[in-house]
């Protein structure tokens, strides 16, 4: 395979943004019919490089060749016309239109009725059907409204659109981050089919086992530079991780060194006000315990935790903290009762994009009545706020030019650390983390795990929703598994296995195990 034809050649690409050199002399060679994995920590420049290949960014220096011909990619449309497509979670389809309209948008087939050209719905339907069949996708109706499709089907739709453009190279950026295992398998099957047809796939992912399974070649980047390209057969997990972080990683999880105390939080018979959500869920969390919450997409784990935090209304249920029943009707109540919630959607409900690091750090704490940042006259002491923020920037090793930088200019991992700092500042007794390491690089992951360990060592409760099995098994003292809004079991983290969790997650039994 290594001697198959080179389809995309990026040579000596450099790209700067104000204050940062995002890419520094990076070259990439992608061959037809192969899966080429692109790896690196967040901020390593993978996405920037791919945005250059897709015409979203224009490199300052360097050359891009497709099929041996030098090209200038003005915009994504130009890239697609030349055979480069990108599947990106943020490149959303038009949700109010149907599948076929989304695929052929801007290129509808026409038929003339008299002199007036009409969109040829029949031809569009037939073309879409054969396109989807060719990819082995049989369960998407071309006339379905895209808004009704699942995340995974939306992704398949994007792939189908890429194929319809005659894509020779398809870039996939973290394609499996919100897919279930079954959906992931389907994606892999489609990738295999595409490579057999000679399409090259550039695959960006943090999931090493996936990469080792499907990639032919692996390119690793660090700090905007190329580390190297290797055949996947010559790599293993340790090699990849050490080349990504530039140092040896001894372990993926910090050593466990905490003692579990008495019961601190008790959730009794929580039932959501939304009848389609969770029902009758009871569990407790002890001091110094990490409770993992497992389940498939749609298990209502986020909904449950957001209800504990007062963001979603309950139909019934009692919440007992430290032996005392508390009423929590909104986030303000939750924070006042020592609960913190790091939400799943960092962009949608976490960061306040245009505000700086200081404002993003102190915002939750300032909704408490504590007045720790006030001067005698009742005004805010901005110097004190900055000093306190600096502590967390140092402690969490947040990489930022200064405290006045808007948070949207930081990489995903660093944004996540700022949000963690925000919640640590409120000195919570109960820290709820919803997919805390999604889309975050290995180094930052380890730091977040260490922080969780530190919290429980201080006798606090940590609840972690996670869809990543190794993390769930590696970090949790106990694992609560949900399935379709029901609690299907609570198992001991030390002895739990992959299969046990998957079994509970995919089958609800009315009696807890």
């Amino acid at each position: 395979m290594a001697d198959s034809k080179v389809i995309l050649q990026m040579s000596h690409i450099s790209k700067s943004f104000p204050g940062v050199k995002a890419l520094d002399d990076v070259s990439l060679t992608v061959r037809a019919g192969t899966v080429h994995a692109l790896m690196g920590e967040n901020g390593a420049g993978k996405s920037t490089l791919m945005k250059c290949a897709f015409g979203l960014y224009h490199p300052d220096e360097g050359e891009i060749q497709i099929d041996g011909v030098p090209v200038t990619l003005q915009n994504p449309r130009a890239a697609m016309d030349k055979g480069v497509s990108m599947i990106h979670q943020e490149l959303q389809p038009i949700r109010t239109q149907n599948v076929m309209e989304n695929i052929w948008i801007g290129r509808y087939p026409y038929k003339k009725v008299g002199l007036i050209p009409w969109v040829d719905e029949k031809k569009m339907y037939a073309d879409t059907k054969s396109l989807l069949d060719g990819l082995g996708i049989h369960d998407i109706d071309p006339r379905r409204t895209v808004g009704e499709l699942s995340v995974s089907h939306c992704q398949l739709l994007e792939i189908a659109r890429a194929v319809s453009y005659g894509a020779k190279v398809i870039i996939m950026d973290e394609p499996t981050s919100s897919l279930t295992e079954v959906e992931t398998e389907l994606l892999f099957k489609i990738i295999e089919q595409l490579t057999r047809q000679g399409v090259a796939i550039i695959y960006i992912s943090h999931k090493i086992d996936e990469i080792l399974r499907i990639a032919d070649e692996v390119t690793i980047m660090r700090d905007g530079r190329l580390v190297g390209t290797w055949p996947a057969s010559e790599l293993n997990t340790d090699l990849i991780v050490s080349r990504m972080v530039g140092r040896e990683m001894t372990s993926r999880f910090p050593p466990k060194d905490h003692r579990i105390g008495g019961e601190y939080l008790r959730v009794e018979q929580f039932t959501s006000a939304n009848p389609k959500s969770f029902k009758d869920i009871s569990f407790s969390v002890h001091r110094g315990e990490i409770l993992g919450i497992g389940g498939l997409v749609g298990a209502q784990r986020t909904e449950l935790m957001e209800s504990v935090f007062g963001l979603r209304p309950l139909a019934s249920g009692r919440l007992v903290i430290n032996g005392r029943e508390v009423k929590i009707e909104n986030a303000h109540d939750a924070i006042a009762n020592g609960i913190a919630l790091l939400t799943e959607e960092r962009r949608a409900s976490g960061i306040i994009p245009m505000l700086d690091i200081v404002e993003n750090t102190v915002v939750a704490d300032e909704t408490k009545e504590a007045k720790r940042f006030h001067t005698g006259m009742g005004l805010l002491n901005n110097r004190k706020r900055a000093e306190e923020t600096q502590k967390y920037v140092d402690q969490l090793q947040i990489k930022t030019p200064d405290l006045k930088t808007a948070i949207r200019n930081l990489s995903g991992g660093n944004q996540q650390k700022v949000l963690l700092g925000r919640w640590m500042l409120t000195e919570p007794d109960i820290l709820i983390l919803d997919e805390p390491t999604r889309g975050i690089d290995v180094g930052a992951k380890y730091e977040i795990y260490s922080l969780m360990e530190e919290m429980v060592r201080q006798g606090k409760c940590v609840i972690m929703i996670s869809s990543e099995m190794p993390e769930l098994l590696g970090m949790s003292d106990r694992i609560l598994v949900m399935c379709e809004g029901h609690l299907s079991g609570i198992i001991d983290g030390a002895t739990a296995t992959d299969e046990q969790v998957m079994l509970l997650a995919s089958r609800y039994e009315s009696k807890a195990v």
Partner: protein
Amino acid sequence: METRRFDLKKFLMNNVLYVIMLVIIAAIAVISGGKFFSMRVMRDILNQSSVRVLVALGCMFVILTGQADLSGGRMVGLAAVVSGTLAQQATYAIKFWPGLPELPPIVPVVVSIALGVCVGMVNGWVVSKLKVPAFLATLGMQMILFGANSLYINKAPNNSQPLGGILSSFKELGSGSVFGVTYIIIIAVAAAIAVHILQTKTTLGKQIFAVGGNPEAARVNGINVFMITLVTYAIAGGFYGLAGCLECARTGSATSAYGLSYELDAIASCIVGGCSAGGGVGGVPGVFLGVVIFNVINYGLTFIGLSSYWQYVVKGIIIITAIAIDVRKYGRND
């Protein structure tokens, strides 16, 4: 380390409006043969700016939360008329409220502000509880206020005439001065300083920015988004009320036509002064400067004898340029 190279694109992005406006002002100065920069002209401009600054400060609160408020101008008009009817001489022939004694000037001021706060709270409630898009909710309020004001001033014996016989003690508020600086300039500057402190030094101020920056994140962080929205509209209403009252004091009269399109100038001044139309970005110094520059251009174009219609053309171009820059600076494409 990074070398800080001069980035022309970024510089233009941040300053192009000021450059354009300085060019316009310089052109005005040259055409007028330097007469434009006399003390008298400058004082006129500052006096006119004062009322506008108050409207823009109010409007800024709403824009910072990512909402819009089109009711400002008509609120100014209502407050002007109401305070006028409360500040007439007892001897005036067609006194609006014949039985009313001569009140101290503080009464119309307080009533105007209170009225504005009430109207603002209704706006805030409609926007954040009924979830009516702010643009339409406040457009509706604009119409209601104008209608109510016209009905009010039409009451016999006044019958829609411009209000007259305003007490000199009240007019003093709009034209009196200490050491050559009028009270209204002092009030506007004091208000600007107060708002600046509120926004940079209080939790409320910070929370307004958070709500504007990302309402969902604000909610997750324990901020009462409904309350913040209500309060910002109420503060805005209070400022409109104060502005209307001072407008009446400054001109010594009032009609229901007062305040027409003040809200548009205020919104434009905010955007030109660096507020993001999407919310979460902005500050008092920029807005203050925005208002003054707008008024300089307004006055200046008249000063050199250009038809007042040209002002609209120039202002329109400036507004569109400002928004185009805003979208590039704070747009989501990065």
